């Protein structure tokens, strides 16, 4: 088991024939992911990287039975791509695209309420089940199969945490990027609930950062009771208020969304929060052995 993605997941890559799509779809295929179809409007009927290309997601569903999508479409067209994937009945949509206006995402979320699709991102590195499937842009070789679920708002910081775990011999059940934008699909709370039910996951590493209330909501969930040890790190203790730190969603203002506030709430919920980002792996190992 794993969460969100399994060995039977059949993937469609929206924007397969573009530069980003080509680059990352090739690596997804190399990793063993079943990329069964690509979608590029106007290029239906062609074959790219040995994968059949369709004009629409609905055709890819009908012809190839895909159930998950990875989106590499530019920000101007990505909101429509998400909606198209959801309306075609896909179960999981991973939107890698960065730079989507937040008002566009609000409209997308409104539409998604009418479907059963789960959205990861936008502005996410994606999701990986080590050894089985990679739906995203993370470097595959740093991962290994194991008991730790990883969920994060960041990209490279997630790779860092995964790398630390792997060096300590701790593999990952699933590593999930929820995205660095203010309005995203699945939240920490949603992913934690999935990890709670996943028998392969024995501990969870949660990587938050300044801005918004996702960590606060996670703390509330964890406080109500969670059967597995959780280790957290929240980036941005030294970030100045009112300044956007790279990610569109990483901004604190007027004392809200600060790293210190999030850390306090997580600790109040009984979660071990490490201050040292180089110590995430060690803390997870200790939590598992405790």
């Amino acid at each position, binding site marked *: 088991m794993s969460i969100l993605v399994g060995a039977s997941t059949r993937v469609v890559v929206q924007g397969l024939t573009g530069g980003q799509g080509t680059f990352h779809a090739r690596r997804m295929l190399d990793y063993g992911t079943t990329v069964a179809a690509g979608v590029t409007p106007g290029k239906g009927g062609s074959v790219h990287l040995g994968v059949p290309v369709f004009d629409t997601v609905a055709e890819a569903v009908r012809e190839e039975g895909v159930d998950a999508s990875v989106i590499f479409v530019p920000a101007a067209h990505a909101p429509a791509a998400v909606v198209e994937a959801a309306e075609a009945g896909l179960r999981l949509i991973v939107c890698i695209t960065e730079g989507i206006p*937040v*008002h566009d995402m609000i409209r997308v979320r409104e539409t998604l309420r009418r479907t059963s699709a789960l959205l990861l991102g936008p502005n996410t590195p994606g999701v990986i089940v080590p050894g089985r499937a990679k739906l995203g842009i993370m470097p595959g070789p740093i991962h290994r199969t194991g008991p730790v679920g990883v969920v994060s708002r*960041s990209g490279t910081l997630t*790779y860092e945490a995964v790398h630390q775990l792997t060096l300590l011999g701790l593999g990952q059940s699933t590593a999930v990027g929820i995205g660095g934008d203010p309005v995203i699909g699945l939240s920490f709370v949603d992913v934690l609930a999935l990890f709670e039910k996943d028998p392969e996951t024995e501990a969870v590493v949660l990587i938050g950062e300044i801005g918004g209330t996702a960590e606060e909501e996670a703390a509330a969930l964890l406080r109500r009771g969670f059967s597995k040890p959780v280790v957290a790190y929240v980036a941005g203790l030294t*970030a100045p208020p009112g300044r956007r730190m790279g990610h*569109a969603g990483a901004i604190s203002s007027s004392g809200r969304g600060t790293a210190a506030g999030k850390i306090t709430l997580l600790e109040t919920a009984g979660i071990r929060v490490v201050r*040292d*980002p180089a110590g995430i792996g060690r803390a997870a190992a200790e939590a598992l052995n405790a």
Partner: protein
Amino acid sequence: MRIHEYQAKRLIAASGVPVPRGEVAATPELAREAAERIGGAVVVKAQILAGGRGRAGGILEASSPAKAEAAAARLLAKPLVTAQTGPEGRVVRCVLVEEAVDVERELYIGLTIDRSRAEYALLVSPQGGVDIETLAAGKPGTVLEQTIRPAAGLLPAHAERAAAALELSGEASGRAKDIAAALVRAFEAMNATLLEINPLVLTRGGRLVAADAKAEIDDNALPFHPGLRELRDPDEGTPAERAAAAAGLSFVKLDGDVGCVVNGAGLAMATMDLVALAGGRPANFLDIGGGVSEDAVARAFGLLASDTAVRSVLVNIFGGIVRCDLVVRGLIRAAHGSGVSLPVVMRLEGTNVEEARSLLTASGLPFALVPDMETAAREAVRLARAAGGPR
């Protein structure tokens, strides 16, 4: 992107929110002429991209055009230091000359984004003119928060609750409902992430008018809306921040002495935190991004080298999409070109790290390559200390 008060007022006025009659002036003479056209008493308001202007003397009353000219002369072309600007302040490039409003009561109305629900949050309080977070923290219950689904817009029931929360009745209540609806339209049209009228003034004549307006526009919307893009103040940020933005780098100047070059926003913040944990202070946030070029890396290093507060540089790269060798090539070029011999500590991991190591060795540059980021941070802090104060 924060925009000026006069810009925010133009945008909300276009959606139907009443604002005081006013004009923007860049010289004292133009301020006098504006006051003459407006007639009667005016206020002269410094236009800077920071709050706290009133207490800092950035908002002056003037009972005549001559006094408006004098007020503008006091404000223009000088830095205004407020609680939000930092000690250097912000230079006032223009003032807003506006008709003075006779205040019966000051109210608050604002919109923000409820990130978790993916909806708008309409905030309303009968007590305006103060910081809304302070108000909410000090007197819970004085701020009404109403979530609005953008697809449905402001429902009559929402407007009713808002007007009641403002403690308005009769004609003023009707006007408040119209303002709430207009504000929701403006919020969407201008791709705002924050839009506040504080205070919304109830005049002695029973009118409602936006005496101040504050707006933040979603940076991600700017590429798609040229009209919004034009609102950017070319003076916003430090020169280094503007140069970084032009190079496609995400850069925020901080007040420490350890320069940071990192790929990824989360790792960049974590690197700053590590520097602090090691007893040092980061000089900046810098995310070189995923699609970075060798040239942009060189420019990033150049930015740090040109900052005399920077005494050591910490490079922390976890290569995924970004190749370690590309980063090293950029750094080598910059180090050779800048003529500045800053101590550099590097931690490289991931894609093409071996090639990057060979390049470094071959370059003959005294860059220290360390195995993990904890060691890298400690070493960078030690080197900054050893170098002493600013260059």
